[in-house]
């Protein structure tokens, strides 16, 4: 994958399906939308048409804040394959203010400065086919 997003990292195209199309459509418009359970208020991640906490299939999409905190992070310095040229880069879990902890990259900063507990804000890194990848930058 030679293509890089505005963040400077690869932007591999995701595979939206019937359950996740709405999430990916929102990212194309720089919005983070998540499904929330109508029965128990659980915000479900990864997106699916089923609450993993109570089994309900009644969920409603809402626009999330895009704010979060670094839960864990690593500077990947050596990696084989298509990401080799992107190293060093920050692989992280970000805890969204709405609850879920998501796999992502922290971009737009010196990788050595990223740390657990750091406040971050969503950025949307467009892929060639429309949907954007949910990445984060220091808030």
């Amino acid at each position, binding site marked *: 994958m030679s293509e890089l997003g505005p963040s400077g990292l690869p932007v591999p195209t995701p*595979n939206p399906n019937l359950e996740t199309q709405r999430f990916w459509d929102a990212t194309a418009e720089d919005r983070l939308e998540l499904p929330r359970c109508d029965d128990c208020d659980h915000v479900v991640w*990864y997106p699916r048409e089923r609450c*993993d906490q109570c089994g309900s299939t009644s969920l409603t999409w809402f626009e999330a804040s895009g704010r979060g905190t670094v839960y*864990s992070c690593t500077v990947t310095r050596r990696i084989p394959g298509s990401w080799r040229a992107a190293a060093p880069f920050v*692989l992280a879990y970000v805890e969204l203010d709405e609850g*879920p902890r998501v796999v992502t990259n922290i971009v737009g900063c010196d990788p050595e400065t990223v740390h657990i507990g750091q406040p971050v804000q969503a950025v949307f890194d467009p892929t060639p086919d429309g949907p954007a*990848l949910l990445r984060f930058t220091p808030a």
Partner: protein
Amino acid sequence: MPPVTIRGKALIAGAYEHPGRELPDRTLPQIHAEVAAGALADAGLSLSDVDAYYSAGDAPGFGALSMVEYLGLDCSYIDDTETGGSAYLVHAQHAAAAIAAGHVNVALITLAGKPRTGGAGPGGSARFSSAPEASFENQFGMSVPGGYALAAARHMHEFGTTSEQLAEVKVAASTHAQHNPNAFLQDVVTVDEVVSSPMISDPLHRLDCCVITDGGGALVLVSEAVAASLDRHCVPVLGTGTSIKHTSGGRIDLSHTGASRSGPLAFAEAGLTPADIDYVSIYDSFTITVLMTLEDLGFCAKGDGGRFVSDGALQAPGGVLPFNTDGGGLCNNHPANRGGMTKVIEAVRQLRGEAHAAVQVPDCELALAHGTGGSLATRMGSATLVMGRSS
């Protein structure tokens, strides 16, 4: 009615580790066949005695369907349970249950792989790309070391664990591997050498990572009646536990592994506690895997793993808790990128008194083997076996 137990109802009669670490001239089915023959010969049994076959994702083609045919077996019981590197301990649990229920007399479990010379990258499986989480995790440069590094970084943040403490795990493994002529890495390393080796994904250095090797291994589990007919020292399975730990709808807990559930299940079935155990084989894909697993199995308090592994605690034969006396995945062997099989094999060697003399634990009566599959703390299959010296 008393609770049904499999305690002592099944015994490990055969255990075999392929001596090869680079096998460019073998096919995958050939390696499965070689380890099957090795384990059956160890037990004093033959292919025609096998009535149950167990394989995981490393088996080619249609798994057990393909391999039962290739091996020429006649089976009335099969199991293709796939939990990554821990699958072979899950198989042992399932085989023990099937034997206890009277469905099976002789169970064969095989593992084989060629990640070193066969061209396949570490860990890969085509069906991962169709997993429901794939597009939400695979787009960000996630790697096996990267995933484990995220758990290590969090452990350091929460508990103050240091790189030097993680390095102690590798140092102990290398101290054992010097006595294993088949070990892929046989040189003893120091803490300084580990922490000054190239950083792969912070905080994991190259020497925090396991080896990549071809090879395989096999186990034969038998009923008490079959065991009584054999000349070989058979090792009873006393307790088993399996757990799947996952991301819980995105509420990922990086601080604990599935061992915190599989361990207590295995100890309860065995009627034992961690203090009773003389030797442990702990899955060591990375140094952090060992440290967190030891905590979660109850060998030390949560968060104390770093302090626990310091000062030679894991070194055989004199340490508080000798571990991975074959050199483990960190130094000896990690066939097919799946280390669970070799964990059981070395535990059997210890209980039989057949480990290398330099690392044999004196009077080893109770041993534990633990497998980890998948990633660490996020989506993983954990399995624990407690075994005794003799029936």
